[in-house]
């Protein structure tokens, strides 16, 4: 067996391992998947909405928060981050209707800095961060807050799903969000949730105070804060029954920019926290290596693919050159090797397993989320959509190395 084939087998082994781990986590915990902890107390909750140019969505976000059935809602603070549109005006217009609504206006300085600014004014013991284009369901906060009865829980996140599902790109993201929500919940069972996303997460204030707020230099302040909280020994939970809908990019360029930002943010947190790898906790033993591995395995696959492609092309060029010189036919049917190798079979089986897993996730969560997936979209998701990721990682590395990234 050659080295390259060994790398293929390694790649397949690791992929299979993570698939089996996920299925095991499901089979051991399936009864707890939709668990909603009892809400023993209406903890004082401050909701922060950092907003920059969100005139189209801010009103909906504020209204959906105030339509929540959670009794402990103390205040909702909109932080207008120097918007150039009517965000501030719209938010202000809702103050009369909602007395608990507070508007803070400041110069543009980014999301993390906006949240940190608002943290100076909050009165609640728990802080919900919600994007200005996200809409929590009525019972989302009630479901999330029950987790804080456990005093070791530092943050709880909700299941996020796209609101807009009209174009193919939007529907592919809907599949992706569903798979992410499902696997993230499973990671909770081994204390390994690596991000409490900005679409809707609630933090215990003392946990946030302990980490000194959000890191404004990081492109993904939500991953950074989650890692910091995990490093400090807090637990991060997820409530799959608590849902929030959000607006996802509907154009490829916007999607690409968003994902590049997320990836660069991922590099930043890895760089910052890598020294804690193998720290005696799931954070050190699993979260950091798993995250690093997730970023690198795509690159490894892409590198391998291009290496083999390059070698093949170079060889074929030389062979064609020789054939032309010898005046024999360049292409013939015998050039096509129609007998699959064992690696081909393994690859097909692995692909089929991941395809089945995706269907399984969609089936398991069918009552909660979108209902429009079909075979074609799932296959597009499994092939074209996921194949873009390694390219995006390469582009992100390039942008990161050039220092060409900023929030807005």
């Amino acid at each position, binding site marked *: *067996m050659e080295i390259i*084939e060994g790398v293929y087998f390694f790649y*397949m*082994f690791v992929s*299979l*391992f993570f698939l*089996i*781990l996920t299925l*095991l*986590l499901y089979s*051991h915990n399936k009864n707890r998947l939709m668990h909603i902890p009892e809400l023993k107390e209406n903890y004082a909750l401050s909701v922060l909405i950092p907003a920059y140019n969100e005139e189209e969505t801010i009103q909906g976000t504020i209204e959906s928060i105030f339509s929540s059935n959670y009794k402990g809602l103390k205040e909702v603070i909109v932080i207008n981050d120097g918007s150039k549109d009517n965000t501030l005006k719209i938010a202000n217009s809702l103050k009369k209707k909602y007395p608990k609504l507070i508007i803070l206006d400041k110069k543009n300085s980014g999301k993390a800095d906006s949240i940190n600014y608002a943290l100076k004014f909050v009165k609640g013991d728990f802080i919900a961060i919600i994007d200005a284009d996200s809409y929590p369901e009525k019972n989302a906060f009630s479901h999330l807050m029950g987790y804080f009865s456990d005093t070791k829980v530092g943050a709880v996140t909700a299941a996020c799903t796209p609101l807009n599902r009209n174009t193919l790109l939007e529907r592919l993201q809907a599949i992706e969000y569903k798979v992410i929500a499902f696997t993230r919940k499973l990671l909770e069972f*081994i*204390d390994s949730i690596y991000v409490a996303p900005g679409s809707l997460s609630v933090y215990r204030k003392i946990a946030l105070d302990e980490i000194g707020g959000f890191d404004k230099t990081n492109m993904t302040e939500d991953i950074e804060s989650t890692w910091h909280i995990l490093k400090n020994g807090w637990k991060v939970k997820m409530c799959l029954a608590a849902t929030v809908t959000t607006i996802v990019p509907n154009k490829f360029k916007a999607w690409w920019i968003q994902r590049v930002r997320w990836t660069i943010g991922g590099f930043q947190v890895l760089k910052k926290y890598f020294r804690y790898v193998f720290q*005696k*906790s*799931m954070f*050190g*033993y*699993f979260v950091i290596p798993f995250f690093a591995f997730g970023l690198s395995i795509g690159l490894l696959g892409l590198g391998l693919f291009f290496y083999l492609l390059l070698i093949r092309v*170079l*060889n074929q060029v*030389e*062979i064609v*050159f*020789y*054939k032309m*010189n*010898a*005046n*024999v*036919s360049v292409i*013939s049917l*015998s050039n096509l*090797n*129609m*007998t*699959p*190798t*064992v*690696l081909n*079979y*393994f690859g097909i*089986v692995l692909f089929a397993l991941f395809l089945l897993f995706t269907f399984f996730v969609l089936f398991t969560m069918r009552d909660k989320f979108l209902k429009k997936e079909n075979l074609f979209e799932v296959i597009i998701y499994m092939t074209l959509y996921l194949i873009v990721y390694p390219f995006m990682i390469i582009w992100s590395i390039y942008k990161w190395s050039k220092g060409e990234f900023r929030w807005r």
Partner: protein
Amino acid sequence: MAMRYRYYFLEALVLTILLFIGGFFIGLSIEKSRNSELANYYLTTEDEISSLADQLDISNLGKYTCSELIERNFYIADSIYRQALVFEEYENSAILTKSQLTREHRKFDVLRTLFWINSIDIKKRCGDNVFNTVVYLYDYQVEKTEEVAKQKVMARISGEINDNSENEAILIPIAKNLNISSLNTLLQNYTHINETTLIIINEKNEFLYNQAEEIRDYFKIDS
């Protein structure tokens, strides 16, 4: 905290190893079934070549005519050519049983050498012009792209000869770097060029990869 989750990882690891071993054995059995198909080819060809050798031996008794021997030889040559194509395809697809295939390949080349010897023998008995022997010699499992390219060219030319001179040429592909003593002896007699890839026609004319036109002229094949 982390220790209580180790069972998930151990369980996943054990299951992955078991599945992987299972997959490995399934893969192995797929390749072995292909190899056994080749082994059957080998047995058939061995049988046919032995039978031809016997026919040659007893032809002195007037039992077999030259045309019968020649017809039989063409039949075997055709099956050798087709088997070589299948063999090449299986070799290109083999991952787990490569070394086993190398041994199989050597066995086939021993047979092909024997077939070459028989073909020479038939020509001696029935006349030099009854058919042309086209022996395509190459090095087995070369990695240098230049050599692979030369082999591809020669394989293509061999294919042209086989397609266009069906009843004139006996095509025998043999790897010459597998240390087959009978082949080495033949090559000492019939080759004068020290090249890894070449075609010998009728044990006297040697052609290299860049002599496609000369080979075509030899067989009057339009390019």
